[in-house]
Structure formats: C-alpha cells, structure tokens
C-alpha cells in the first residue's frame, strides 16, 4: 500500500501523531505522579491506602475495560470518517439478551456468549447496511439505532427485569485475576492488539484512514470502500457485545440501562487520543492513551482528600475531561487556523465530514 504512506509523509502526519501521543503520555505520567503523591496515605494500622496501592491500579484497569473496548470499537469507525452513537445502547441490548439466553433459554455459557457476540455483529450489520450500503449519514443512522437498541432492551425486560445469579465461572471474567491481572484486562489487551494489527498493519485497516480522508478518492483508487466501511460497523457491534459480557460479569447483573452514556466517554477518549472527528487521521495507540488518561483522572481524583471532602470526584473528573477534550482540539486546530487566516479562507467544514 503506497497511497497512505505517501499521504502521511506529505502532510507530516506521522510526526504530528508522534507529538500528540508523546504529549498524552506526558499528561498521563504527570497526572499519575500527582495522584500518587497527593492521593496516597498511610492509615492508623500502618497500611498504605489510596491511589498508591496495587489494588487501586487493578481497579482502574478493571473499570476502564468496557469504555476502553467501546473506544477501540469506535477508532476505526471515526478513522473512516463515520461515527457510532449506538455502541453503548448495543452494550445494553447484548447484556439483556445474554441474560435471557442463559436464564430463560438455559443455554450454556459459551454458546450464549457466542450467540451474543454474533448478535452484536448482526446489529452492527444494521448500521453497516444503512451507512455503507444506502450511504445514509452515520450520525443520523446511529442516533436511530441508539434509540432502537436501548428501546429493544427496555421492551425485552419490560423496563424492570434484572438478570443476576450468573454462574461463578462467568463472573470470574469480570471479578477475578488471571496471571496477576484482572481477567477482563487480558480480553481488553487482546482486542487492543488485534485492533492495532488491523488498523496499522493490514491492507484493509490502512484503507480506513484513506476512506476517512477522501471516500471518493479511495473509491477511484480502487479500494473496496463499501465493504470496508461496512466491516468497520460490524466489528464495532461485535466488540460492543464483548464489552457487554465483561460489563455483566463485573457487576454480576444485566439490566436494560447498562452502560448508559458510555458512548460519550468512548468518543471523548478517541478524540482525546488524537483521532480526527473528520476521519483520516489517528491511531489505536492514541485511543489507548486517551482511555488511560480519562480512567486515571476519574479514579485518581476520588483518592484526593480535598475531592473526598467535597464528594465530587465524578463531577470534577467530568469537567476536567471536557476541558482536556477542548484543549486537545484547540491545540491541534489553532496552528491550522493561523495558516488558514493567512490566506483568508474559512471552510465551514461540516461537523462530521469535511466540506466537499
């Protein structure tokens, strides 16, 4: 694949990417050290408590797996110039379906899990058909399926049924450790590694950025745009289903309101990671760093004495995430704005795709 490489080189993207990711890494190390210093204390029995404990680090990892998986699912979608608002709703639907398959139909765990992931891919296929097949705007289609998937989850459970009492073998996926790390972290790392290979090391994966940069150009270059675009949404659905299994195993229950609002944080993590919301630019490494920065921020704040006194970890971390997102955007856009002002043009790029 020659095209993406020359594209990248001529725009200096690789250099820029490196800079953005380095910057994120610096932010991550800084906030981690800050929380380590201010959030760790020794209690009366001489035990270390707070941020600096290994348990807390595992907790951060455990809690970031679901949003992390959704962010990984969204990375190729956004790289290819799309968006998927429906992933968290699909997580809820898959959790409920998994509960029904195991409890009401009495299927064995592995068959139910496999069926759930297949269903997630199928639901992603609905997005794919409408977006890649009929070429409808991804924002509207996934706004519709956002409502549809969550609504189906509510209808299937009549808004009330909660599935609990899962087999211990299944719960260990979300609550136990394997080889020192939480079990779900291994799943997360495996998906992350697979996604990195796909996006950065395969022909199909490298086409995502080309499609996001210019769908017409990609089509003229002979890339299978429709097929690859469809694949991105199907993959997102399957990963959302995996996240649903982990979510259910961690909490030990499946309800229709599972993971409400997670899509916002997943999108925030992807964009914070340096992926352009217009598509065409970004990386899996950036997304992972974005997830880590948000997760450490949220968990770390909860260990600071002043935040504990205010009882406002959630609120402050949410606000700081918003500010970080704006800062990351402004940081990447203002230099371009200055050069654009020099030649006096302002292209009113649409919010989701660059203007033609």
């Amino acid at each position: 694949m020659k095209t993406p490489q020359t594209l990248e080189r001529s725009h200096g993207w690789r250099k820029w990417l490196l800079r953005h990711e380095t910057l994120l890494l610096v932010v991550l190390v800084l906030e981690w050290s800050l929380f380590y210093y201010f959030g760790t204390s020794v209690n009366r029995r001489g035990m270390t408590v707070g941020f600096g404990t290994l348990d807390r680090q595992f907790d951060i990892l455990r809690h970031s797996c679901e949003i992390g998986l959704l962010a990984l699912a969204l990375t190729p979608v956004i790289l290819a110039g799309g968006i998927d608002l429906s992933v968290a709703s699909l997580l809820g639907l898959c959790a409920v379906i998994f509960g029904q398959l195991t409890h009401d139909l009495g299927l064995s765990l592995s068959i139910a899990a496999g069926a759930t992931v297949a269903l997630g891919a199928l639901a992603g296929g609905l997005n794919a058909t409408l977006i890649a097949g009929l070429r409808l705007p991804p924002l509207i289609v996934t706004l519709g399926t956002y409502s549809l998937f969550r609504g189906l989850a509510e209808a299937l459970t009549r808004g009330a049924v909660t599935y609990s009492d899962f087999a211990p073998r299944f719960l260990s996926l979300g609550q136990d450790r394997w080889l020192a790390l939480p079990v779900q972290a291994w799943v997360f790392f495996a998906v992350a590694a697979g996604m990195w290979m796909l996006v950065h090391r395969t022909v199909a994966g490298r086409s995502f950025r080309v499609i996001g940069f210019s769908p017409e150009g990609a089509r003229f270059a002979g890339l299978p745009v429709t097929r690859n675009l469809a694949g991105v949404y199907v993959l997102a659905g399957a990963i959302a289903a995996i996240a649903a299994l982990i979510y259910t195993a961690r909490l030990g229950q499946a309800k229709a309101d599972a993971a409400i609002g997670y899509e916002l944080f997943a999108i925030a993590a992807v964009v914070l990671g340096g992926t352009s919301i217009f598509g065409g630019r970004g990386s899996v490494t950036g997304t992972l760093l974005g997830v880590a920065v948000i997760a450490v921020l949220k968990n770390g704040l909860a260990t600071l004495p002043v935040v504990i006194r205010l009882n406002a970890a959630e609120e402050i971390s949410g606000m700081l995430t918003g500010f970080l997102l704006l800062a990351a955007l402004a940081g990447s856009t203002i230099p371009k704005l200055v050069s654009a002002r020099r030649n006096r043009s302002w292209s009113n790029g649409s919010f989701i795709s660059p203007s033609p």
Partner: protein
Amino acid sequence: MSRYSRELSVLAVLAAMLLALGVWAPGFYRLQPLLSLATREAPVLVVACGMVLVVIARQIDISVGSQFSICSVAGGLLAAAGWPMVLVVPASVAIGAMLGMLNGALVAGLGLPSIVVTLAMLVTLRQGLNLFRQGEFVTLPDGVQWFGLSQSVGQALILAATGVLVIVLAAALRHVALGRQIYAVGSDAEASRLAGIRPRWVTFFAFAALGALTGLAAAMNVVQSPQVQPLSGNGMELKVIAAVVVGGVAISGGRGTLWGATAGLMVLACISPALVHLHIEAYWEKAIQGAVILLAAIAEGLRRRRSDA
C-alpha cells in the same frame, strides 16, 4: 410541490397517525390530556426551532440538554429569590444565549468541530451543575407555577407563545436576509463567503440563537411544575435532533424548514400516548422512536438519490 416532498411526507405520516388514533383510540382526543401533552412538548419544540437553525448551518449542538438544565435551575433559583417572572424569563434567555455564544465562539471563532465541542460542553456543563447543586431540587414559591394564573390560562399562554414564536421564526428564516444567509452558509460556506456573507458570524449567530431559545424553553418548563428538577434536560439533545431529522432537515446542511421539524416533533410526541391508547406496552416507545428515525433517514436518502439522478 416536489421541493417540499419530505415535509409533505412527514405531514402525511402525522395525518395518518392522527386519523388512526381517531378511529381506534378516540380517547386520545379528550381536551385536557391533549392540552397537557402539547404544553409538555412545547419547550422541546422551542429548542427544536433553534436546532433547525444550527443544523441548516451545517453544524450540530448536542449540549442543549445541559444548557436547558442550567437555565432551568438558574431560572428556578432566581424565582425562588423573589424575582418577578417578567425578569426571570429574560434572565433565563440571557444565560442560554451566553452558553450558546460560548459554543458559537469555539466553533465559528476557532473552527473546532461542533460535535466534539458540544460533546465537551455537554459533559462539562452537566457535571458543573451537579457539582454546584449536588442534584438538589429547587422548590418554587407560590405564584410561579403557571405564572401565578390558573392552569388552563398558563397552558394557553405557553401554547400561544410557542405558536407565535414558530410562525415568526419560520417567516424570518424564509424572508429575512439573515435567515437566507443561514441556508447559504449551510449549503456552501466558501461560496457564501465569496457572495459577501460572513459565514463565521452567521454560524455564531445560529448557536447564540439556539442558546437563547433553549433558555426560553427552560423558562417555559420551569413554570409547569412546583419544583425544578436539575436533570430536566438530560437526553433532550437526542429528542430534539430526532425531531429535526424526522422533520426533513438535512443533516448535511442547507435544507429544511421549521414547520417540517414541528411536524416531526409531533409525530415523535404522539407515539407515547398512542401506545397507551392502543394498549401496547409503553416500554416499546424508545424502540419505535428509533425505528421512526431510521425510516426518516431512509426517506431522506431516497429523496437525495432521486434528486441526484
């Protein structure tokens, strides 16, 4: 005629729905429940009017729910502090306008993508309000609910204000220069700039207007109950965007009408009472709304394909 085919198809769907309700569920047409349904949805319609402006200008604002909550709580606090309603309403509008201007400055001034800017604002404003209020309700003093009038007069007042607003805005969008400029900027910003329009200012104005209308809607919502709920705006952005899309406003900018969006909102708003009267479980509402949005998207795609051909 074919210019408005999308809007007309929404109207046809709405008429079919109302007719079907008349045949199978005449209970839907009792005056009092219908009146309270309309009053409940009036604030959403006011926000949707602003969203039409922003979407026609080829932008989006997903922070309206948070803006709505902030304006509601602020309006409630001012009313509780003894401000008369004639001052509370403009204050709420002003707060909304300022929040809208902040979005507008970030999008039009710095050229940041509006979906991410307003996503950041959605989270920041919501959590800021939580931090400030800790989820507390605002209890309103007597004389605030329904502006201190009787319920039916208050409802009539809100509905009349909404109706006038929609008509005036629709006329302005069609006949006033600024209204035409919004369409021009949404169709092609660079071409509009070459034609002497200032796309940045038009975009900024659209966001400011949406904020102001959100503030107005919040005030209309505050007077409907004895307490102000701090989460009243949660999820409103999706409802509003859904109404706009179902009403035939093109998300790619430059096309759409206010009355189309009004009809779109009416279709979505009638689903829930229709389910009740047709004895379908209410849990299906969200799924049906999603299906309606998807159908609207498909209709829009078909219209575009036909006009391309």
